[in-house]
């Protein structure tokens, strides 16, 4: 009996890839384990091995073909299996489709909002953090021409721009140099800046974080990449006890200009130890600033500001957003202020506060709410600490209702802080108790069906908005 060879998935988020090369041709005989082809995505290359033995009777996808869907038939062995793909699912599925819940799905549609995000909205001047460098531009200044780039490119461009500008800035972390970044964020930086400024580290988070903090104290400006923020837990003592507190303990003598960055939160199907949001962990600590970009413009503008900031900054990225494109200003000096939230969508009936990937979810919910006659205002926090409470309070004074959205757990989460500060500053303006939408209060399960249930959905946000507006 013949068999078919299917396009394999090579990462948790892959839906399609390029068939780069055939190493066998029609008529060749293969045995299990033989390498038959090479496939590529923007992140990785993989050899496809034969799992059955037989003769390749037909190659259906020629080499060099881009955008080959995961699980589509790429070749036939011994005449194919006449439609009976062994054990294969009926529909092509990839891990990206079955995983990550609705948040991931919505992230894929984020492009539309990207244009809005990049254009910016008129904003009032707020109390800027005292540490903002004088060169920092007006909040939400009009930056002119934009171009669609991925969040991954935006982050890389921000680091490259700051490294060109200041030779004290350097990047260190696991796989940042030769490998070009575990998630390809540092692509090309080794080539441009050399091994002195783009430095590969062994798997020693506690040690190299301490080393970077020490270098920062002496006046260098390290960027530390954590492969994911889950691994920053190995180093959290140095971040909190050394980086965050030394300025205070030294009576102002020893500041530490340093950026800790990397993907935060759930990716897709990577289970409890690799899927967690650390926003509230770090936001708890005086002496740190915590930034969480959503769009490419956020990523680029805020990372540039973070690198210039004289303080320790926790910069929380999101793996699922890395490949998403948004419009981003092309102006060479483009930068965004830390400590300023952004109104992504104006509305009058309810204020929805979100950060990072959940901004996309909130905007989607706002669209659905609009169809039902509820006009939601969506605030992208951009910075979590210091919290831009002025923008939030101004909005709540207008809408009288508050919904917060985060991927992490509700208990002691960012939503708690936002709601509490709103209560402190605008209690009399609230017409309903604030509602938190958050990840369920469980460790992240691996199973596809359970993972989906554990993450916030558009409907959760819609329901929350309806409950605070007392609509059914």
């Amino acid at each position, binding site marked *: 009996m013949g068999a078919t060879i*299917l*396009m*394999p*998935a*090579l*990462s*948790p988020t*892959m839906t399609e890839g390029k068939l780069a090369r055939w190493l066998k041709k029609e008529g060749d005989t293969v045995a*299990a*384990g033989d390498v038959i082809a090479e496939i590529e*995505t923007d*992140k*990785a*290359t*993989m*050899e496809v*091995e034969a*799992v059955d033995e037989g003769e390749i009777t037909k190659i259906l996808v020629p080499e060099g073909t881009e955008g080959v869907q*995961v*699980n589509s038939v790429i070749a036939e062995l011994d005449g194919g299996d006449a439609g009976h793909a062994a*054990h*294969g*699912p009926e529909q092509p*599925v*990839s*891990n990206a*489709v*079955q*995983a990550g819940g609705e948040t991931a799905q919505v992230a894929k549609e984020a492009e539309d909002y990207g244009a809005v995000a990049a254009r910016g909205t008129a904003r009032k001047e707020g109390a800027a953090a005292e540490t903002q460098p004088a060169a920092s531009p007006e909040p939400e200044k009009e930056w002119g021409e934009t171009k669609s780039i991925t969040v991954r490119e935006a982050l890389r461009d921000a680091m490259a721009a700051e490294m060109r500008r200041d030779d004290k800035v350097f990047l260190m972390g*696991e*796989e940042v140099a*030769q*490998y070009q970044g*575990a998630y390809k964020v540092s692509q090309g930086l080794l080539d441009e800046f050399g091994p002195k400024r783009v430095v*590969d580290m*062994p*798997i*020693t*988070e506690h*040690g190299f974080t301490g080393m970077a903090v020490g270098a920062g104290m002496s006046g260098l400006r390290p960027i530390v990449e954590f492969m994911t923020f*889950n*691994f920053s837990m*190995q180093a959290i003592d140095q971040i909190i006890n050394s980086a965050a507190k030394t300025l205070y303990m030294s009576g102002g003598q020893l500041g530490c200009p340093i950026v800790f960055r990397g993907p935060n939160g759930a*990716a*897709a*199907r*990577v*289970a*409890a*130890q*690799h899927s967690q949001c650390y926003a509230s962990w770090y936001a708890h600590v005086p002496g740190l600033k915590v930034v969480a970009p959503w769009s490419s413009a956020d990523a680029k503008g805020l990372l540039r500001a973070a690198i210039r900031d004289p303080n320790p900054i926790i910069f929380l990225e999101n793996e699922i957003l890395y490949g998403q494109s948004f419009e981003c200003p092309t102006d060479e000096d483009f930068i965004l202020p830390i400590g300023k939230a952004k109104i992504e969508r104006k509305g009058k009936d309810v204020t929805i506060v979100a950060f990072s990937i959940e901004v996309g979810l909130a905007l989607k919910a706002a669209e659905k709410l609009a169809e039902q006659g509820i006009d939601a205002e969506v605030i992208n926090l951009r910075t979590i600490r210091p919290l831009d409470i002025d923008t939030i309070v101004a909005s709540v004074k207008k809408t009288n209702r508050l919904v917060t959205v985060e991927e992490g757990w509700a208990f002691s989460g960012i939503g708690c802080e936002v709601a509490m500060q709103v209560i402190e500053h605008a209690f009399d303006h609230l017409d309903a108790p604030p509602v938190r939408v958050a990840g*369920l209060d*469980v460790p992240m*399960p*691996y*199973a*596809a*069906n*359970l993972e989906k*249930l554990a993450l916030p959905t558009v409907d959760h946000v819609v329901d929350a908005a309806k409950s605070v507006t007392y609509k059914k």
Partner: protein
Amino acid sequence: MVQAAKAGPTKRRGKATPTPTSAATSNTAGGMTQEQLLQAYRDMLLIRRFEEKAGQLYGMGLIGGFCHLYIGQEAVVVGMQTCLQPGDQVITSYRDHGHMLATGMESRGVMAELTGRSGGYSKGKGGSMHMFSREKGFYGGHGIVGAQVSLGAGLAFANMYRNDGTVCLTYYGDGAANQGQVFESYNLAALLKLPVVFVIENNKYGMGTSAERASASKDRSKDGTPWGIPGEQVDGMDVQAVREAGLRAVAHCREGKGPYILEMKTYRYRGHSMSDPAKYRTREEVQKMREQHDPIETLRKILLDGGLDEGKIKTVDDDVKRIVADAAEFAQTSPEPDEKELWTDILLEAR
């Protein structure tokens, strides 16, 4: 089919002492009888075929997230497991499928965990990196590089505390061997004379970073020297060499002399996880290891040279194929976990 799943090597547990051999039935190389060698061949082949199937299911989207295959390293766990007795423990990282099969965990339960189904060892809640079996002495399945090393020292601490003569095998990679808590564990284990064998699986790379680029220590078996921990470098592609060194290490622990380090020189054929740029090593390097040092092929030749009937090997091959096919079938038909499982196993009821 249940029959096939049970017929595997899974029921067998290793013995601590080399079995005395009768000249008629044995090839005494490495202290292993022909029978033991055939069993080792079967156990390694089961891991190899299991992992190939897992790779295939991943490609079909039936397994998600991270999936780290053990292909190429089979001789390490199979050889070490033959040195253990019931009650001994094993703990390792996320590259754990081989360890689980070696401790006797069922192929079906492991594969069903990979597909996130209720028939999996963690009811689908742990996935590839997080499986456990108290019954088989397997303590996981850990995703944070290096964290299992302190945990392994803790399992050995409990062994010392209970004074029951059991030993813990703590496995970790060449990359993990650089983590600070590994060195803290060396000191603790030596200080408290803990019965733990530290097994470094040096497959030459931690993700895309070669061991040379990650550590100034070139002979990892000597990493315990400051604390007086004896160590050996072992050909981890040779199951007999692994067993010989394993027996020495385990005996040292059982005699109450404290920890022991084994640096297994091994190699992974596949990418770090399913997603791997494959640019940090050459195709030739991988090809050379596969062709000249494959632990399964080598043992197969030894068996045939020792006069074993080719038909017997074929029977083992077929058997293994059947077990893996059955596991794959089970992993696709076992239902997804009940939605209620989302809320179970977070805390235990205090009584």
